[in-house]
């Protein structure tokens, strides 16, 4: 009987093409959206919800909105009372971007931004050969700070309390990200060190920083710290904030990286030892490249968190976009335009955070070596 049912002689079954798995659109809809009655109900409810939300938003944000030709909220209302008053953002654009940086000097911000953007882009695309990339970006950031602050060649010296807006967000965010990665790596290695001094110090540091809200640390930076420092030291507030944000992020990163290190099989350490690599060389060449690769999703989510947390600086009086925005909607001319403000800021943050998340996926794919 088995001979009758055999399609091909033993050992001569030919290679056949896989069955075609490309159903038409209707079939796809039936299989994925209406495969059962409950599924169909959920699909319809979902569509109804989207219909209720999206067209009105588009109507508000695009069709009825006012961008040009209005100098105040009243003029916006006069043109179209139902739409978004983007004229508010348009008129205040410079402040959102540069804060209170002197208008004539804003080209310095632009140059710094372009410089940092180019270096970061090179570092990211050329592949994050961690150490080299970080050194280059750090250099770029230092040069950018010099351009921004120091008055050279007859340029005006700009104090950091004039910094604000997206420029401030990017300064805090980028510095935090690139400074906390090496510190986080060192903390993670110290915590795993067999020398008790290192592991105890790292553990205390990490647990303390993680156990305290960032906002508290920022308050310490802005007020308490001046009590501890010798009287008369004038330590720039922005620098203090940068240090706190960096340490905060480093503590979280250290734990993420420690997780990555724990996932590396012991055999990797042993193979590196057996080849005669010293501790630092085996870390740098063998262990960290693998541990950091595993930790990419966690590291990037830490970075995204850090980037969004930069908005907390408004509480200690630094004017990030939220701070600028809140001041702006207190202005009689643009009073209470909070919808426009928050939608605008949300879009800004979304663009940056979403890019980071896509970059992390790209990096994971790029570093995948089939193991």
């Amino acid at each position, binding site marked *: 009987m088995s001979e009758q049912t055999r399609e091909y002689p033993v050992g001569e079954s030919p290679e056949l093409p896989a069955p075609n798995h490309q159903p038409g659109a209707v079939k796809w809809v039936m299989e994925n959206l209406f495969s059962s009655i409950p599924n169909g109900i959920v699909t319809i409810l979902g569509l109804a919800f989207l219909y209720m939300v999206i067209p009105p938003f588009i109507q508000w944000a695009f069709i009825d909105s006012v961008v040009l030709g209005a100098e105040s909220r009243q003029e916006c209302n006069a043109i179209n009372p139902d739409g978004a008053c983007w004229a508010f953002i348009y008129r205040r654009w410079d402040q959102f971007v540069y804060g209170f940086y002197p208008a004539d000097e804003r080209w310095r911000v632009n140059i710094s931004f372009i410089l940092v953007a180019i270096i970061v882009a090179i570092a990211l695309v050329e592949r994050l050969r961690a150490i080299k990339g970080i050194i280059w970006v750090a250099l770029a950031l230092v040069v950018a700070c010099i351009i921004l602050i120091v008055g050279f060649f007859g340029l005006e010296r700009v104090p950091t309390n004039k910094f604000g807006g997206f420029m401030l967000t990017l300064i805090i965010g980028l510095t935090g990200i690139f400074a906390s990665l090496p510190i986080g790596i060192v903390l993670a290695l110290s915590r795993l060190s067999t020398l008790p001094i290192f592991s105890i110090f790292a553990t205390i540091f990490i647990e303390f920083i993680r156990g305290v809200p960032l906002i508290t640390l920022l308050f310490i930076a802005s007020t308490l710290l001046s009590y501890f420092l010798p009287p008369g030291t004038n330590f720039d507030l922005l620098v203090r904030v940068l240090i706190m944000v960096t340490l905060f992020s480093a503590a979280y990163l250290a734990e993420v990286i420690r997780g990555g290190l724990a996932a590396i*099989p012991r*055999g*990797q350490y*042993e*193979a*590196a*030892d*057996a*080849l*005669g*690599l*010293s501790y630092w*060389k085996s870390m740098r*060449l*063998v262990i960290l*490249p*693998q541990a950091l*690769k595993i930790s990419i999703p966690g590291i990037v989510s830490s970075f995204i968190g850090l980037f969004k947390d930069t908005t907390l600086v408004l509480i200690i009086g630094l004017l990030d976009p939220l701070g600028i925005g809140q001041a702006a909607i207190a202005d009689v001319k643009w009073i209470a335009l909070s919808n426009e403000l928050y939608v605008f800021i949300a879009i800004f943050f979304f663009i940056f955070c979403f890019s980071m998340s896509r970059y992390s996926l790209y990096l994971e794919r790029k*570093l995948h*070596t*089939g*193991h």
Partner: protein
Amino acid sequence: MSEEKNAIEIKKMHKWYGDFHVLRDIDLTVKKGEIIVVCGPSGSGKSTLIRCINRLEEHQQGDIIVDGIELTNDVKKIDEVRREVGMCFQHFNLFPHLTILENCTLAPIWVRGTPKVEAEEIAMNFLEKVKIPEQAAKYPGQLSGGQQQRVAIARSLCMMPRIMLFDEPTSALDPEMIKEVLDVMTDLAKDGMTMIVVTHEMGFAKQVADRVIFMDVGQIIEENTPHEFFDNPQNERTKLFLSQILH
């Protein structure tokens, strides 16, 4: 001068894991160019013994002298010994993030300071010797187990070691891949390398070894030429072990 001929000398060596006495009173001298096969039931301490030779494990009593260098806590001496002693592991332990060629050139470049071009030339030579030069640009994850183990051997050889340690090199391999690895090891033995091999491949022991060592509960129970060891075992435990593995 007679001491010069000894590659490894182990004298009255003891090791404990916590309170557990894993290696007891080990005495072993390996001459240059000698091939030693270590066998014994699992948990008998054979892997631990060879891991003490390159200080992946620390011994607590007795002396280990490798190539004239005594192993102590001195990191410099440990590094010196590790440069001269290559090791192959049961699970290959290739570096998955590096290509086959990079795996082979990493240590020569970073430990010996060999220029990259030269290191790559040496690596290609050894990859040819283990018969997989065509895989040089691939990553370990793309190779079969047998190929990975051969790369691991080539990686060790690139450091030009005087002694090679093998820790159950074929135990994790599919049966049809064992032979290709054993062939490479046999070639290496013919070239005069000093080798200590922990293995259950008794065919290899009979054919290649100068001496076979049988270990049980942390001690060397019997030590003999392969011929005597297999045909005329002295100790009861050796007889029992051989009857169990030689079906």
